């Protein structure tokens, strides 16, 4: 014991007091399947790292950001131009948020196409879907906070769209706005939702999501007809997989550093609620597909208002995603095929409408 190195002694000390032995045992036994689709296992870890980065940079931004109508824009300007390395932290937050949403999508579709939602992982899938909605919520509420022209009008459009949600639309819009117009109440609410409500919802749900993943282990996709040798083999989670995971995180953080340093995040003119909306207002890229789809709809579809019809379609897609584990259970090849085709159609539609919205 006396000759043990200091880190080992510290670990033993902690292990005795915190009962860490089962954790070490779990880490030692945990394995990760090795197959040709194993690359997609890294996506969840990447999202987690980007989330941590969001929390850290978000806390730093909160030190200087003022969620008040006359000061919000000025405080962001000050962060960008007066606070030492404020531009760096803000760019990390903004670019990091976009990267996080991107990797959430990649994680969602990769687990979907690997059929990782099947029994006993239905709850992993469902909690993941709710986490996706929370991520959207972070994006939507965070976008307004700089209170510049683009964010103001994009939020206005976003809330208008949300108001078309069947049954709850108008109430939801009123709650978000804090009245009939976007103003101080909206800013305060968005700030509170962004920094308090959503994190409070996210943390326990993320904990459950991660706990279920640990409980069931990594899902293995069904081997295809051309899959060969590596099938059925496993590697240790600790240290083999976690070290590879760590390399993936470093690469993503490098990508983030490239974006932040070469394209620092700017800020537009201060929002003027009485000014006409500038031409070409668009929401963030991850809402562009929905935005573009709604633009294409006629004013009415039968007896229903066009945008309301669109919201019903989005709701329907979300519902199918939520229910898919209960239909495609692995027992029926037909359902498996339908689920795959549905996912491919949604993904293709998302990409096409996003690009369309971007260029139009």
């Amino acid at each position, binding site marked *: 014991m006396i000759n043990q190195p200091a880190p080992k002694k510290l670990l033993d000390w902690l292990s005795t007091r915190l009962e860490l032995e089962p954790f070490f045992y779990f880490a030692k036994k945990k394995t990760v399947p090795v197959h040709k689709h194993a690359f997609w296992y890294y996506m969840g870890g990447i999202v987690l790292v980007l989330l941590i980065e969001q929390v850290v940079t978000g806390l730093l931004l909160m030190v200087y950001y003022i969620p008040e109508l006359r000061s919000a824009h000025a405080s962001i300007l000050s962060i*960008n131009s007066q606070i030492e390395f404020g531009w760096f932290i803000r760019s990390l937050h903004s670019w990091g948020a976009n990267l996080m949403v991107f990797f959430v999508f990649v994680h969602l579709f990769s687990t979907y196409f690997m059929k990782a939602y099947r029994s006993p992982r239905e709850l992993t899938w469902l909690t993941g879907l709710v986490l996706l909605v929370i991520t959207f919520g972070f994006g939507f509420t965070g976008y307004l906070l700089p209170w510049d022209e683009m964010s103001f009008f994009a939020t206005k459009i976003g809330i208008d769209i949300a108001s078309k949600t069947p049954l709850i639309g108008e109430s939801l819009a009123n709650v978000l706005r804090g009245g009939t117009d976007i103003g101080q109440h909206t800013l305060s609410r968005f700030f509170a939702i962004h920094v308090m409500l959503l994190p409070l919802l996210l943390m326990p749900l993320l904990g459950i999501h991660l706990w279920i993943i640990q409980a069931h282990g990594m899902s293995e996709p069904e081997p295809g007809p051309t899959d060969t040798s590596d099938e059925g083999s496993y*590697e240790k989670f600790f240290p083999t997989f976690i070290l590879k995971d*760590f*390399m993936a995180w470093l690469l993503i953080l490098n990508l983030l550093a*490239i974006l932040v340093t070469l394209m620092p995040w700017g800020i537009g003119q201060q929002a003027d609620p009485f000014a006409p909306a500038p031409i070409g207002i668009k929401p963030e890229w991850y809402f562009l597909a929905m935005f573009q789809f709604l633009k294409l709809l006629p004013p009415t579809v039968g007896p229903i208002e066009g945008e309301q019809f669109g919201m019903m379609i989005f709701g329907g897609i979300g519902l199918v995603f939520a229910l898919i584990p209960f239909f495609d259970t692995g027992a029926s090849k037909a359902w498996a095929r339908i689920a795959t085709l549905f996912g491919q159609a949604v993904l293709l539609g998302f990409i096409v409408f996003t690009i369309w919205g971007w260029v139009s």
Partner: protein
Amino acid sequence: MNYPFWVVPYLGSGWAIGIMSIIHIFVSHFAVGGGIFLAFTEQLAYTRQDERIYDYLKRHSFFFLLVTTVFGAVTGPGIWWAISLASPNGTQFLIQNFTWFWALEYLAFAAELSTFFVYYYTWNRVSRELHLRLAWLYFGISICTLVLINGIITFMLTPGSWLQTHNIWQAFFNPTYWPSNFLRLLIMFGLAGMYALITSSRIRDENFRAYMLRYSARWLLPIFFLGPIIGYWYFSQIPQAAIQNVFTGIQNSGVGNFSILARATYLALILSGTILIFAFVGPYLNPKGFSFKTALLFLSCGLLVTGISEWTREMLRKPYVVYGYMYSNGIRKEQIAQINQVGFFRSAAWAAAARPVIPEPATMGPVVGKGEVIFRYQCMSCHTQTGYRSMKRLLGERDREAIHGFLQILRQTDPEKNPYHGIMPPLAGQDEDVEALADYLNTINNTQKQKLSYAE
């Protein structure tokens, strides 16, 4: 003054050189660092009589041959072609000033290539002792190519006391010569290790693969432990005005003149830090999990850092080609007063000949304007019309008078009167030249085009 221009639309001639140069640096640094790697590793194989290392080296040297000779042969002449067109004055000056060093560099380069061909094609054909000697010979010659070219490259940023004495030895052994030599050697070690990780990751024998990956990863250690010290030495020798230009205000704004250089420096530091961690957790701690694809990504990060650092070094020199002596547009510092006195067109030997070789812009009418000739000569080494550092964007909403006022500021050589002093070369010419340039610039950002006559 020499040939007035080489127009590279959108990209600009600077980037045409830059892209080729950066690719060439990836190759040339591998040519030297990889040579050192081959010599040390073959020595290891010879000492241990390890057939597995010999087999690996044969495959690695084929990779080395392909990268250094194919890419090197394309990009090396490409740089000469581009710099002689984009910066004829700078090229001419460097050739004349360093004639014998260039000659020696060519000799060393020819010897380097020949030695490597002999090295590669004598695997299993000569004794191992002789082959090892070839490896060390290549090592020595490749170092010679580095120490020769390094004197010329470093001179461009830190001519030091040559500015007063014009002594060639002082030019060659300039203030950053030694730190740059050591720094480049360290970078070459690191890159050699990264390239070796690519070939090592393809070894089939698991144990030997792990051994070679760890061995290759260790080649990154010198740059990370000695790099900061040598880097500090190097930066301490650079003109402080250049450093100040880059970092002033960057902590606060992240924008402004040259801030991209400071941001690029931060990026290089961040990437370097992560490369060190990457090398440790990847090939060193977990060689079994280090795949060929990961090695490629890892090398991409290393090349990115190298490219960014080289670009930053090049940009530090701005607005000069040779710091304190010749501006980036080829006009020597001492020529400014003379051009101001006699006028631009009476100083430019090729101005009269310029007319027939300039393509006629559709917006400009039948003859090329004087202003455009001045623009191409004095501005286009850094700016393009509508692409990189676009004049259209930089001029913004300025009208003809505002442009003229701005040009008057650029004529000033007093830093108090010209905020762009130290960032841009002073505009050289008489009043009529400035008028002509203002007329031309006005056609770039304003829809009302003016037809100007070169013969005016």
